[in-house]
C-alpha cells in the first residue's frame, strides 16, 4: 500500500501526485513534499548510514540542520552527493540513492566497523599505524581513504549554469517565520526597500509546522496573508529558497537562491542557483531556533527524531514516521508533539518526561521523572527502554521516539564576524552576544523570544528600531505567549554509546576520552573527536558536547567556550560561487584588430594574458610549426614582414611636466628628448629591480606616448598613477590608457619602407633622412586617415610601427598585404617575433622576471646618476652590484645540431653538477634560422667577461646536458646597421 503513513490535512497538494525513486524503488508523493516527508509517508525510515560505524540512520530533523538523512540526489552528471532529504523538494521523476554503504543500505558490509567501535575511538589513528614506517602510505592509509567520504561526485563537468547577482536594500530580513514576516510588514508598509529571504520554499517558518492560532485564525492563514500582502508591495522583494550563507564586512551578505533545484532540470538559459551579494546597511536576523536532542544509549536508530520534527512532518506534510510514537522530553514542548499527533490519529505510546512535576494529561500516559535509557531495533526503532522515577524499567513499543531537550536560538550569522554568543541561564542556551556584525539586529526565537507573541512583537519592534521609524508600533496580532522554562538536561546518566554527532559517530564516551587525554578546550575537543565537523556543522550536536565537557571540567558552559560559527550557514555548491566565470568565460578574451583577418589566414593563436595573439601563420604544406616560424623570420629578414603588436600597452602622457614626470619614472633620462623622437626606457621598481621596459615617443612638447610590455600594461599604468598622485601630486601631467584605441602593426625588414611608402600619404617624408631611426610623427595614410608612425625596431631590421584607430586595423592589415604582394610581404606571429628578438638579444618577459636589475640586463650604465628616478637609490645596494653579478649573455651549442632549453642551468665545463656549482640559467631559447642552430639568452655570473667560454648547459628534468659557448647576446647585426638603414 502506498503512503501508508500519510495523515490527513497538511500543506501538500494532494491532487498532484509525484513519482520518485529511492535506491531504485518507486514511490509516490505530493506537491510540497520533501524527499524525507515523502519517504516517511511511504513508511521508509532508513535513509542513510553514519560515517565511521556505518550505523543505520533515518531523519533526525525536518530541516537544514539534518545530520543523518543525506543522499545522492539525481543521477549522471547532475548527481549531488550529501543532499539533505529533509530539504530536497520533491519533483516528478526525482531519483535518489543512499550513500556510504555497500552492497546495500539494509545490509552494509562496512557496518562491521560498529563491532570494533572500541578500537575506533576518538583519535585512535594518531596512536597507531606507525610501524613499520613505510606501511602508512602503502597499507594503512589506502584502507582509511577507501572508507573516507560520504557521497560521490559524478566525475563529469557540472552541466548546469550558475548566476551571480547584486541586490541592494534598506533592510534585509533573514527568515520568514512570524518574527521575519512581522518585521518585513513593518518595514514594507513604511515604504522601505526590503528583502525578505528564507531558506525554505514555503514562507512562514515554524507557523507551517504548528497548530497555533493568530488573531483566532490558523497561524498558517496569517502567514499566507502576510506573504500575499508583502508580494503586493513594490518595495519588498521576497526571496524564498534563498539561504543567507554569510555575513561579510560592511553589510554585505552572501545568499544562495536555489532557482531550479525543485525542477527536474533548469529551463533553457536559466541558472540552477544564483549567488546574490546583498548590500544591506541594516539586517534583521529572524533565523528562529533549533530543537536540541537528549543523548542516551542507541539514540541514533531510525525513528528516533526531534519531537518538533515529528510535529512538522505531521502538521505540515501530513506524514508520520510510525503509527505508534513515544516522546522523550524535559520541557512542555514535547507534549505539543503528543497532542498534535493524537489529533492526527497517531497513537502515543507514552510521553517520558524527565521532570518529576511534569504536567499530567488525560489523552496520553505521562511517565514523570522517567528517562529513556536505551532503544532496540536493527534497521529502525522497535522498543524504547525506560527507567521510571522509582528506578524500575519498562519497555515501550514504538516505531518512533520524539526527543525534545529544549531549543537553541540560531545565532550562527551573529558570529560570522567573530562575535561570541552569550549564555542565557533562563533559557539554558546561547543567545546573540554583544558584538554583532555592524548593522545587524536579531528578533524572534533567534534572540530567545520563543513564543509566537514574542516573535511577532520583537520582529515589529526590531524593524522599527533598525530603520528608525517614527510613530508607535501598530498592535501586533494576538498569539500564544506560553512561558518557556528550559531546565538543562543533556544526556542520560551512565550511558556509554550515546550519540552526540550522529553523522561523524561522536558519542558521549568520545568526549569523556578527549577530556581524559587533555583535549579540553572546545577547539581541541572539536578537532580531536571531529564533533561538529560533519555536513550539519554540529547544529544539533555542539551544545551537548560542550555541556558534557563543561561538566567534566567542573566549569560553567560559557567558561568552556563556544566554537566559532563560520560561513556558509549551510553547505553551498562550489559552482554557485563561480557563477558564469568558468570554461571559456573564466577570463575575458581580448582580440586584436587583425584577429578576424588572422583567423581567415588560418593563424594559430596563443594566450598572452587575456589577449589572443597570432602565434604563427601556417601555409599550404607546412606540417610542423617550426617550418612556419622559420619561414616568417627569414622572409622578414630578407624582405618585409608584418606583425600585430597592438597588445603592447599604450599610455598617453600629457601636460607641461610630462617630460619631467617620465624622467622620474624611467631610470634613464627623458628630459632632453626632442619632439619627434622616440627613446627606449627602462622602468625600475622603487626597490631597484627592473619592472618593465618600452619606448616613449614625444609627439609634441607636452605629449608623449609610452609603450609597456603586454603583460605589465595594467600594473605599469597603476604604478604611473601612484607616482603621479601620491609622489608628485603637483606635477602637471595627465595619464590615459589608450591601448585598445589604436591598432598598431610592426612593419619590419629591408623592404618595410618601400611598403609603407605605398600607404603613407605623400605629404610625409619617411626616407632615412626625413624619418631616421627612432623618429615618430602624427601622419595620415591611405588618403587622409590619421595615423601614428614610429621608427622603432624589435626585430633588429629596418622597421616601423604604424598605428591607426582600431576600427580601421583590419582594413589596414589587408591593405598592407595587398600592397606588399610585390615584396612577398609575410605576416609573422609571436613565435617569429620571439626568435628575432632573441637573435637581437632584446630582453622580454622571461628576462624581466622581477628579480633582475639593469646591471643584470646589461644596462647598468643606463641608470642615470645625474638625476633622481624611481628605484635608482635602492639599486645601489651592494647585493645588487656584486663583482660576479649575473649578466645577460647569449649561448649557442658547440655542436650546432644540439638543442638548448630555457630553464637549463649553466655549469663549468668539468666538475660536479649541483647547486653549489650553479653559475647561471637560460631564460629564452629558440632556433635561429638566420644562424642555422639554436641560440639562447641567459644570465651568467660575471657574464660580460666570459664571452667565448665553454660551459655545460644542464637540464635534469628534461634530461639534457649540452656543451655550449657563451656569446654576445646580439647574435644578428651586432652593430645595428640594418635598423639604421
Amino acid at each position, binding site marked *: 500500500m502506498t503512503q501508508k503513513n500519510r495523515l490527513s490535512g497538511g500543506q501538500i497538494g494532494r491532487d498532484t501526485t509525484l513519482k520518485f525513486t529511492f535506491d531504485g524503488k518507486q514511490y509516490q508523493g505530493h506537491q510540497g513534499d520533501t524527499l524525507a516527508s515523502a519517504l516517511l509517508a511511504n513508511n521508509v525510515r532508513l535513509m542513510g548510514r553514519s560515517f565511521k560505524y556505518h550505523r543505520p540512520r533515518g531523519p533526525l530533523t525536518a530541516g537544514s540542520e539534518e545530520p543523518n538523512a543525506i543522499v545522492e540526489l539525481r543521477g549522471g552528471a547532475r548527481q549531488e552527493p550529501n543532499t539533505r532529504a529533509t530539504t530536497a523538494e520533491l519533483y516528478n521523476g526525482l531519483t535518489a540513492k543512499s550513500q556510504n554503504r555497500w552492497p546495500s543500505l539494509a545490509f552494509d558490509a562496512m557496518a562491521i566497523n560498529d563491532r570494533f567501535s572500541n578500537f575506533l575511538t576518538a583519535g585512535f589513528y594518531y596512536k597507531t599505524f606507525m610501524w613499520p614506517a613505510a606501511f602508512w602510505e602503502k597499507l594503512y592509509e589506502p584502507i582509511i581513504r577507501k572508507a573516507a567520504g560520504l557521497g560521490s561526485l559524478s566525475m563529469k563537468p557540472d552541466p548546469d549554469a550558475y548566476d551571480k547577482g*547584486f541586490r541592494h536594500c534598506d533592510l534585509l530580513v533573514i527568515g520568514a517565520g512570524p518574527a521575519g514576516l512581522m518585521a518585513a510588514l513593518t518595514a514594507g508598509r513604511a515604504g522601505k526597500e526590503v528583502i525578505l529571504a528564507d531558506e525554505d520554499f514555503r514562507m512562514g517558518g515554524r507557523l507551517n509546522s504548528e497548530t497555533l492560532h493568530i488573531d483566532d485564525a490558523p497561524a498558517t492563514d496569517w502567514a499566507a496573508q502576510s506573504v500575499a500582502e508583502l508580494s503586493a508591495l513594490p518595495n519588498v522583494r521576497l526571496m524564498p529558497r534563498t539561504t543567507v550563507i554569510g555575513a561579510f564586512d560592511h553589510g554585505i551578505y552572501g545568499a544562495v537562491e536555489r532557482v531550479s533545484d525543485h525542477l527536474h532540470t533548469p529551463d533553457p538559459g536559466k541558472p540552477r542557483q544564483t549567488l546574490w551579494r546583498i548590500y544591506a546597511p541594516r539586517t534583521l536576523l529572524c533565523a528562529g531556533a533549533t530543537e536540541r536532542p537528549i543523548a542516551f544509549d542507541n539514540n541514533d536508530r531510525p525513528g528516533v527524531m526531534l519531537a518538533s520534527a515529528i510535529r512538522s512532518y505531521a502538521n505540515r506534510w501530513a506524514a508520520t514516521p510510525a503509527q505508534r510514537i513515544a516522546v522523550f522530553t524535559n520541557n512542555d514542548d514535547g507534549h505539543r508533539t503528543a497532542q498534535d499527533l493524537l489529533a492526527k490519529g497517531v497513537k502515543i505510546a507514552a510521553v517520558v518526561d524527565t521532570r518529576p512535576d511534569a504536567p499530567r494529561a488525560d489523552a496520553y500516559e505521562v511517565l514523570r521523572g522517567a528517562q529513556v535509557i536505551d532503544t532496540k531495533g536493527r534497521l529502525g526503532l522497535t522498543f524504547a527502554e525506560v527507567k521510571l522515577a522509582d528506578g524500575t524499567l519498562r519497555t515501550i513499543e514504538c516505531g518512533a521516539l520524539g526527543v525534545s531537550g529544549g531549543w537553541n536560538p540560531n545565532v550562527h550569522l551573529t558570529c560570522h564576524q567573530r562575535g561570541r554568543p552569550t549564555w542565557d541561564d533562563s533559557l539554558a542556551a546561547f543567545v546573540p552576544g554583544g558584538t554583532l556584525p555592524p548593522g545587524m539586529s536579531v528578533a524572534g526565537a533567534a534572540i530567545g523570544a520563543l513564543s509566537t507573541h514574542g516573535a511577532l512583537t520583537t520582529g515589529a519592534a526590531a524593524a522599527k528600531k533598525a530603520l528608525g521609524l517614527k510613530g508607535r508600533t501598530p498592535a501586533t496580532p494576538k498569539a500564544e505567549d506560553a512561558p518557556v522554562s528550559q531546565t538543562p538536561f543533556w544526556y542520560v546518566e551512565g550511558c556509554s554509546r550515546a550519540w552526540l554527532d550522529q553523522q561523524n559517530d561522536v558519542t558521549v564516551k568520545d568526549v569523556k576520552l578527549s577530556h581524559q587525554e587533555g583535549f579540553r578546550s572546545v577547539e581541541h575537543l572539536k578537532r580531536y573527536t571531529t564533533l561538529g565537523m560533519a555536513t550539519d556543522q554540529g547544529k544539533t550536536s555542539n551544545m551537548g558536547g560542550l555541556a558534557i565537557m563543561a561538566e567534566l571540567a567542573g566549569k560553567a558552559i560559557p567558561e568552556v567556550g563556544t566554537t566559532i560559527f563560520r560561513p556558509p550557514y549551510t553547505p553551498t555548491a562550489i559552482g554557485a560561487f563561480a557563477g558564469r566565470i568558468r570554461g571559456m568565460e573564466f*577570463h*575575458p578574451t581580448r582580440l586584436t584588430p587583425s584577429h578576424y583577418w588572422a583567423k581567415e589566414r588560418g593563424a594559430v593563436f596563443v594566450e598572452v594574458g587575456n589577449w589572443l595573439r597570432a602565434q604563427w601563420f601556417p601555409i599550404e604544406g607546412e606540417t610542423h610549426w617550426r617550418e612556419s616560424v622559420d619561414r616568417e623570420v627569414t622572409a622578414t629578414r630578407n624582405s618585409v614582414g608584418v606583425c600585430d603588436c597592438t597588445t603592447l600597452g599604450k599610455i598617453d602622457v600629457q601636460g607641461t611636466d610630462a617630460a619631467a614626470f617620465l624622467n622620474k619614472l624611467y631610470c634613464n633620462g627623458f628630459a632632453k628628448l626632442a619632439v619627434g623622437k622616440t627613446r627606449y626606457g627602462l622602468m625600475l621598481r622603487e626597490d631597484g629591480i627592473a619592472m618593465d621596459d618600452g619606448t616613449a615617443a614625444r609627439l609634441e612638447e607636452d605629449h608623449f606616448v609610452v609603450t609597456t610590455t603586454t603583460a605589465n600594461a595594467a600594473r605599469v599604468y597603476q604604478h604611473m598613477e601612484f607616482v603621479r598622485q601620491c609622489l608628485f601630486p603637483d606635477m602637471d601631467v595627465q595619464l*590615459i590608457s589608450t591601448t585598445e584605441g589604436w591598432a598598431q602593426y610592426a612593419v619590419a625588414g629591408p623592404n618595410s619602407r618601400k611598403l609603407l611608402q605605398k600607404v603613407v600619404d605623400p605629404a610625409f617624408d619617411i626616407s632615412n633622412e626625413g624619418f631616421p631611426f627612432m623618429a615618430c610623427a602624427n601622419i595620415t595614410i591611405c588618403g587622409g586617415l590619421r595615423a601614428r608612425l614610429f621608427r622603432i625596431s624589435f626585430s633588429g631590421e629596418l622597421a616601423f610601427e604604424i598605428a591607426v584607430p582600431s576600427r*580601421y586595423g583590419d582594413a589596414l592589415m589587408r591593405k598592407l598585404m595587398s600592397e606588399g604582394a610585390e615584396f612577398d610581404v609575410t605576416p609573422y606571429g609571436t613565435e617569429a617575433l620571439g626568435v628575432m628578438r632573441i637573435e637581437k638579444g632584446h630582453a622580454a618577459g622571461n628576462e624581466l622576471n622581477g628579480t633582475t636589475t639593469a646591471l643584470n640586463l646589461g644596462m647598468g650604465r643606463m641608470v642615470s646618476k645625474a638625476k633622481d628616478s624611481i628605484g635608482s637609490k635602492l639599486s645601489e645596494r651592494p647585493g645588487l652590484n656584486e663583482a660576479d653579478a649575473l649578466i645577460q649573455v647569449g649561448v649557442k651549442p658547440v655542436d650546432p645540431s644540439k638543442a638548448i632549453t630555457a630553464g637549463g642551468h649553466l655549469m663549468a665545463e668539468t666538475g660536479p653538477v649541483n647547486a653549489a656549482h650553479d653559475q647561471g640559467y637560460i631564460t629564452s631559447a629558440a632556433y635561429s634560422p638566420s644562424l642555422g642552430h639554436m641560440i639562447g639568452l641567459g644570465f651568467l655570473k660575471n657574464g660580460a667577461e666570459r664571452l667565448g667560454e665553454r660551459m655545460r648547459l644542464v637540464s635534469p628534468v628534461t634530461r639534457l646536458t649540452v656543451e655550449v659557448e657563451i656569446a654576445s647576446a646580439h647574435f644578428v647585426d651586432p652593430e645595428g646597421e640594418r635598423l639604421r638603414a
Partner: protein
Amino acid sequence: MHDLSPLTPLGGTAPQIDTVADLTCTEQCDLALASVAARLGQEKACAAALQKLLGAAPPVAGKAHLAAPYSAVWAGPDQWMLGADFATHEDIAAQLKAALKDTASITEQTDAWCCFDLSGEGIAAVMELLCPVNMRALASGDATRTTIHHLGCFVICGDPNGFVRILGPRASAGSLHHAILTAMRSAL
C-alpha cells in the same frame, strides 16, 4: 577621403542587434569619444570652457550630461569622457583641442571602447546580474564606472526603466556582449 572600411567592435560590418523578450541590446558604433583632463591649475578654466561647449556645467562625480552635439560623463577628478556623433566628430580630439586650448589634455578614445545600448523592459533585472550598480536607485543622468565580469565599464543611465548605455573595453567586446546576452536570457 581614405579607402579603409571600418569593422565594428564585434567584428562585423554592421552593428549587431539582439532582442530577448522585450529588451534589445544594440551594438552602438556611431559614437566619437575623447577624454578631457584638466591641466594642473587650469581646472576652473577647463570647466568654464566645457560649460561653454556643453551648454551646461560639466557633470559632477557619478553624473553624465546627455545632450547633443556633445554629451559628457564624469570620469575622474577634473576628468571627463566626451561623446559626440561619429559622422560629424570623427576628429573629436582635434575639435575639442580647438575649443579647450591648453586648459586640458585631450586624448582620442573613440576606438578604445565598445558600446552596447540596452532599451526596453527588464533592464534592472538584467543589470543586477552584471554589476553591483543599484539600478533601483539609478536615475536618468546617473553614470558610473564599474566592473562587469572582470571588465571595467561605464554604465550610463538614460532612463532607468527604458534605456541604459554600457561602455566597455573594445578588445573585449565579444566577452562583454556574451555576458550581457547571457544575463538577458537568464533574467528575462
